[in-house]
């Protein structure tokens, strides 16, 4: 085996000429996305938890408040949004923690690809398995709170946008609390103030949808915040992860 000049990739394995083509950042990110998806479906039982939590919390309000649908409709936006926020926070604590403990996060940081992209892929999996189901279930739970059928598309739209923001903002909190042993409560303390604008615009859009009024204004504002979160959030999360790996 003549020594290859430094620039050529050495063949790692006898007989099998490994001249690995470099994976692009996009391929690496989809690889991470698929892996996390497969991992999540290996523990299928846990997939239902955020939705179950959301349903139970929403169901508490009629019990605690009043069975009258007309009055429940009044508070429905707030109930749906607070429950959705808490449900998505639930699954966030372990978004990066598992990977940090088994050394996978380190390999992401050393992969030569943008850590922001890889962590964004993980955040997308979190949204797909938590945010999206919440957005789909919420209109139904809204029905249980006296919300008319016509309002359901509006609620779905608002929550689809809102849960994306919550996932991205929550990812920053999850990354920041990596260095903290029991980071769960701290994660909520860090994330909730940052989620205030999302809550205000989201709940207002839902309220207008319920009243059958055009909810464009709050939806646009919610959209703007979501875009801001999508651009800056992953960068902050990547910085926080690098810091926790030092």
């Amino acid at each position: 085996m003549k020594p290859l000049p430094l620039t050529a990739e050495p063949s790692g394995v006898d007989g099998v000429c490994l001249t690995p083509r470099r994976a692009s950042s996009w391929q690496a990110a989809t690889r991470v996305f698929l892996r996390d998806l497969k991992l999540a479906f290996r523990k299928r039982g846990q997939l239902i938890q955020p939705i179950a939590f959301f349903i139970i919390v929403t169901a508490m309000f009629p019990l605690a408040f009043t069975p009258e649908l007309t009055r429940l409709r009044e508070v429905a936006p707030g109930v749906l949004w607070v429950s959705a926020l808490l449900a998505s926070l639930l699954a966030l604590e372990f978004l990066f923690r598992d990977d940090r403990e088994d050394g996978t996060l380190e390999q992401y940081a050393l992969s030569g690809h943008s850590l922001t992209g890889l962590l964004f892929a993980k955040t997308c999996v979190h949204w797909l398995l938590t945010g999206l189901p919440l957005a789909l279930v919420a209109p139904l739970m809204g029905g249980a709170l006296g919300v008319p059928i016509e309002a359901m598309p509006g609620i779905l739209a608002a929550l689809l946008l809102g849960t994306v923001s919550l996932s991205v903002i929550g990812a920053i909190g999850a990354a920041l609390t990596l260095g903290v042993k029991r980071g769960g409560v701290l994660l909520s303390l860090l994330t909730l103030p940052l989620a205030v604008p999302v809550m205000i615009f989201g709940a207002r859009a839902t309220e207008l949808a319920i009243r059958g009024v055009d909810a464009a204004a709050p939806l646009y504002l919610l959209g703007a915040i979501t875009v801001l979160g999508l651009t800056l959030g992953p960068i902050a999360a990547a910085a926080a992860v690098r810091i926790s790996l030092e």
Partner: protein
Amino acid sequence: MDWKWFHRLASPPYIYGLAGRLIPWFAWPAAVSMVVALYLGLFVAPPDRIQGEGFRILYVHAPSAWMSVMVYTIMALSAAIGLIWRIKIAHAVAASCAPIGASFTAVALITGMLWGKPMWGTYWEWDPRLTSELVLFFLYLGYMALRSGIEDLAQADRASAVLAIVGVVNVPIIHFSVEWWNSLHQAPSVMKFGKPTMAWSMLEPLLLMLLGFTLYFAAVLLIRLRGEVLRRERAATWLRQALEG
């Protein structure tokens, strides 16, 4: 880019000594301007047409509210400098800012409630300014909780710096969203004044108090900074001199 001069300037021993020398230069002017502002505010300034004498709470509420925002901004700025150029002193400044900012945010909240009570009939009203102040208070709590949650000081510095930067980006957004949210339900605002612009005799004490508070902040920051510098310092020889000095 050779920043040798800057690194000498930002070197702990230099800052430790400089901070010590500067404290009185901020502390005394702060005390003087606060006392003068207090006298003008309580005795000289005329009562407001609508709120009468009660408006004088303004002279402690407004400066505290100003402190809460100013200190957070300075904290985020120094955190960003520390994070980007890896300057320990900047992290020490950010660490010193947080408790001062948080305590004055609490003052702003409570004085705001005391001011609004006669008008609202209750101590707490979801007034836009008070609500923004409350959320800012949570941002401070989050920052300090994160800092104390991470054992390694260098990591706590850098992680809390990211949070401070994310926070400062959100402060205006939160303020706008709260104002927008409030405009829907139109809760009465605290600061209603008889005349559109305040008379100079009413405004002067406020400006003086703002100056006093800002100077006071600088003085307390410099005191705390000396402690934070010591916590981050490792060179034994310099430490020994600092401890004797």
